[in-house]
């Protein structure tokens, strides 16, 4: 959450919000024109109405049909403008929101891994749903009524000035009172609304975390504690919500009061002026209608104001995510230009996730084309970090990583990742068919080709045993596949992407060793001439690696192939002996 609450630049937020509308100039203009025409009708209608009543009062009954006919025409026109207005504002709001959601998603999907690793996912999601939803409903409901309200007030004031300047000036007390009250209330309102949205975000965060981590919650009977924590946030949210809504809701009655005070002022002074013979009765009755008419737009503005405050609070949070600097795109060099064979060098690489806690120390490594390199070492020794840096999920603090001599920062990031396939210990599959999941990297792959990969990865039989084979749709949560089966699918997915660099980060830890052996055999064929990096704890997995790199606390302590390392009788030997001796060491 952190940084967004600080961004209290309301004007800047508003400007950015308006920029979204500016993209649809034609619609905005059309909308404004329709609103203006509607307002004109709204101002004309009471004048006509007062004419009609004057005609009745003065018993000029023959004038009435004409006036009523004009009235009918004005009304019809006003309905037409309101239709156009509604149409435009619907399109405008939905288009705006669609673009805003798309932009936000575009930012989310390009957020640096470092940001996602350190921010609650539920809160990020809350911005997409609650906050954008808020902006959406505000835009569709409020913006045109705000505009028409303002125009209406201006128009009415204009008419009043035209009819009788002194009375008009008096009416303006209403406007001034309104402005003061609005300013006073809205500051408090905005604060409450912002707090509410933040709490809503952390509520979402809790729900997301606990529902997705539900297995652990249940395993440790922590349901009650989790519920308690949730209820605490929920209660707090309710308290703040009530405060915000009550503040917002008191705007209407307050405006109503101000407006009626204005009305009495006008009636009193109008009556006084009439007694003095300064103005006609007709003018007074028109004034009274105008003064009354004043009320409606002001009331509307007041109501809309609350919504707009929420929307701005929401927009602040949305822009907060959009302002996170996206991943760096990298250089212009395409992997294709670097030749078919890939040599990777790490040169004096230092890295820390948290400043001051170094994870990689002066890391140097050369991976020759076509080699299979294994990284072994105790947990936390920096193996995954090295991979994170190669994939550019994170950037090194100092030193460089080169591919065929070119710093990876100069290589186009997408082409680098495109050429690389990574399989992680925590598998991620999408709520889609097995087929789409396997073809995730390249949807143009033919089924026949996919089958042959699946057969070679020893996963074909398992898939065909599923209810609908390759067309089985997985649910977001992995649909009762075992972890090992999910790993097999994600390994197959990696093979199908035909990578030039393959990274397996504990990718077969949940797969039984016989299946793993089959995968390895497949790998030997598939990765012929290609470079691969394997992180594994089972030494059997990596015995045949060309180079085995033994890491300890962010440093490389040994390097060589299986035989030479065994002869050295160092750390690798120790690890290897544990493998056989089991717990006896």
């Amino acid at each position, binding site marked *: 959450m952190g940084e967004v609450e600080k961004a209290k630049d309301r004007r800047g937020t508003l400007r950015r919000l308006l920029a979204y509308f500016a993209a649809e100039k034609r619609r905005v203009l059309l909308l404004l024109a329709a609103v203006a025409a509607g307002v004109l009708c709204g101002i004309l209608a009471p004048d006509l109405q007062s004419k009609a009543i004057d005609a009745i009062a003065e018993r000029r009954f023959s004038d009435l049909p004409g006036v009523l006919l004009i009235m009918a025409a004005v*009304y019809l026109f006003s*309905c037409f403008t*309101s239709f156009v207005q509604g149409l435009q504002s619907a399109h405008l709001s939905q288009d705006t929101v669609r673009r805003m959601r798309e932009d936000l998603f575009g930012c*989310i999907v390009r957020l640096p891994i470092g940001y996602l690793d350190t921010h609650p996912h539920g809160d990020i999601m809350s911005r997409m749903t609650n906050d954008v939803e808020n902006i959406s409903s505000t835009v569709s409901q409020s913006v045109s009524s705000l505009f028409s309200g303002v125009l209406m007030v201006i128009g009415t004031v204009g008419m009043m000035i035209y009819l009788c300047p002194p009375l008009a000036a008096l009416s303006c007390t209403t406007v001034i009172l309104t402005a003061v009250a609005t300013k006073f209330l809205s500051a408090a309102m905005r604060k409450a609304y912002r707090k509410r949205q933040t709490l809503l975000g952390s509520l979402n965060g809790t729900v997301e975390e606990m529902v997705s981590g539900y297995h652990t919650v249940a395993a440790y009977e922590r349901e009650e504690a989790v519920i308690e924590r949730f209820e605490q946030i929920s209660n707090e949210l309710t308290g703040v919500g009530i405060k915000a809504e009550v503040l917002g809701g008191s705007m209407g009655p307050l405006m109503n009061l101000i407006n009626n005070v204005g009305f009495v002022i006008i009636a009193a002074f109008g009556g006084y002026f009439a*007694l003095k013979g300064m103005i006609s009765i007709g003018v007074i009755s028109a004034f009274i209608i105008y003064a009354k008419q004043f009320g409606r737009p002001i009331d509307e503005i007041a109501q809309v104001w609350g919504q707009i405050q929420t929307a701005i609070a929401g927009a602040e949070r949305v822009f907060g995510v959009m302002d996170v600097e996206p991943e760096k795109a990298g250089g212009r060099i395409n992997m294709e230009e670097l030749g078919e064979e890939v040599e990777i060098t790490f040169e004096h690489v230092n890295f820390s996730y948290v400043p001051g806690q170094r994870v990689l120390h002066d890391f140097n490594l050369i991976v020759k084309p076509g080699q299979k390199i294994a990284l072994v070492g105790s947990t936390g020794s920096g193996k995954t970090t090295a991979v994170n840096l190669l994939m550019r999920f994170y950037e090194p603090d100092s030193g460089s990583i080169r591919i065929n001599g070119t710093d990876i920062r100069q290589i186009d990031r997408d082409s680098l990742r495109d050429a690389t396939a*990574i399989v992680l210990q925590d598998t991620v599959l999408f709520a889609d068919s097995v087929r789409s999941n396997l073809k995730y990297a390249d949807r143009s792959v033919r089924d026949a080709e996919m089958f042959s990969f699946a057969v070679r990865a020893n996963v074909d039989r398992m898939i065909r045993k599923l209810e609908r084979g390759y067309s089985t749709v997985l649910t977001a949560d992995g649909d009762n596949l075992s972890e090992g089966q999910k790993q097999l699918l994600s390994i197959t997915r990696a093979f199908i992407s035909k990578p030039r660099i393959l990274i397996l980060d504990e990718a077969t*830890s949940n797969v039984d060793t016989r299946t793993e052996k089959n995968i390895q055999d497949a790998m030997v064929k598939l990765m012929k001439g290609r470079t691969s990096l394997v992180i594994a*704890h*089972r030494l059997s997995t990596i015995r045949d690696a060309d180079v085995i790199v033994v890491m300890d606390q962010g440093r490389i302590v040994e390097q060589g192939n299986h035989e030479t390392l065994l002869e050295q009788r160092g750390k690798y030997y120790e690890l290897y002996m*544990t493998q056989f001796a089991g717990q006896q060491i």
Partner: protein
Amino acid sequence: MWKYLKKYWFYAVLAPLFMIGEAGMDLLQPALMATIVDEGVLGIGHGGVGSLDIILKTGMQMVALIAAGGACGVLSGVFSNLAAQNFGNDMRKDAFRHIMHFSFSQTDRFTTGSLITRVTNDVTQVQNMVQMVIRGFVRTIILFAGGIFFMLRLDLSFGVVVLCAMPMIILVLIFFLSRITPRFTILQEKLDKVNNVVQENVTGSRVVKAYVQEDYEQGRFTKANDELVGTQMRILLLLNYMSPIMNIILNLSVIAVIWIGRIKVGDGSITPGSVMAAITYLSQILGALMRLGMMFQGISRGAASARRLQEVIDTEPEIRDGSFEGEPALRGQVEFRQVWFNYPERDPILSGIDLVIRPGETVGILGMTGSGKTSLVNLIPRFYDATDGTVLVDGIDVKDYRLKDLRKRIACSLQKSELFQDSIAGNISWGRPGAAPEEIRHAAEIAQAAEFIDIKEKGMEEPVAQGGHSLSGGQKQRLSIARAVLKDAEILIFDDSTSALDLKTEARLYEALNREYPDKTKIIIAQRIASIRNADRILVLEDGRIAAEGKHEELLETSKIYREISDSQIGGESGG
């Protein structure tokens, strides 16, 4: 829903009462205004001479009236918010409580994304609906009825206009609302879809990035988003046809009132001021009717959300508490009797398992991917229920225990080490809140986690990011093991939870575990033979059956599968 509202009936009654106050003032105001206009300004009844006195006196009354009305309005707002938001809060809490008691297959069915939308967005919609009903609904009805009353009091003939206009408005409302309402359910479903895509991308970001599928994901999102916007658009467009038609009816009625006014003023039965008042009332009546229509729209949206929430609340947890209350004689025994298991509409995963694990025994489970290892242990703490057969813990059927009592006996370290946003100490003591720092430390030491915790800047207080992304795979597993150890249960289940540990650490872990807790029953699922070769008994699972069991040495001799697994791990040097 009533069940939730009942608790706040006091607020829910007070809110409309104050509303009556506010609306009543709104109804009285036009009459006072008419007095000001007719008598004060125009001087009707005083020979055409206005009276400042009347204006000021009536004006004061009016302002006082409005102030009182406004106060009522604010209070009504306070109470309706107290009712609606507390109601929403209760419903939200209850829904969440229900989710927290779902069985795993029930959460599988709803999907995470949809559950999140229901607890957040849907609650807001329902809350808005309640707020609207107890406030807007009452206000509108009062304005409607009061408007008719006052208007007819002016002159009965105005009633004709209302009588003509009302059926038309109602017909238009029915026509449009019947078309709009069903779309709200669709709208929430589309929202679910958008949420699911976002959630997948936020949690699976590494994979999306690694395969450079940002554009594809953007496309997927665009599709979901377009569908959502499309649905919303259709609703807005329908509404947009409705309001001009309503306006035309309203405006024609105004003209009709003026026309009637002409006749009535002509025969001297009413004053021009009354005509003005009649127009005000008419707008109030028809405006109320229109708002009523809009409210129905809001209600139907809220109702769609309420249904979705109700679905969660009505879903009875499949796994119910049993009635066994006593203390079983055994401690740490697990027994499977002819146990079968399959996920709904799938082939059996476990086929007739018979197995007794004695107290204090260490059992290793080995088997191919998908052979049913995890499913087997998932039945012990009733994460899932067996499709057929009986699972017993300490001689009692697991279904007879109260769930809490059952799970208290079992500590699991799951395959996926789920960690939470909390400190390291908080995560370790997750299963036993309030554990003493020494106990936490001890658990961390057994789990071989102490050494990496100590080099963290804040040690035990170091915060863990959501999902534990700030830690390496092996560190996560060790915290998850420490968590299981600290829980101090008689049965320990490690579901492949040492796979990311190097063998040396793993060996130290098991050694410490055996030394400190020799009495605990330990069930260890593993891929590496080294992890379990010292177990009292090793089970080899194949296609949901126990294919072989025995000690390491025995199995090497008797079981072909076991030998194969062993060979695949240590190559040709088996027996070393």
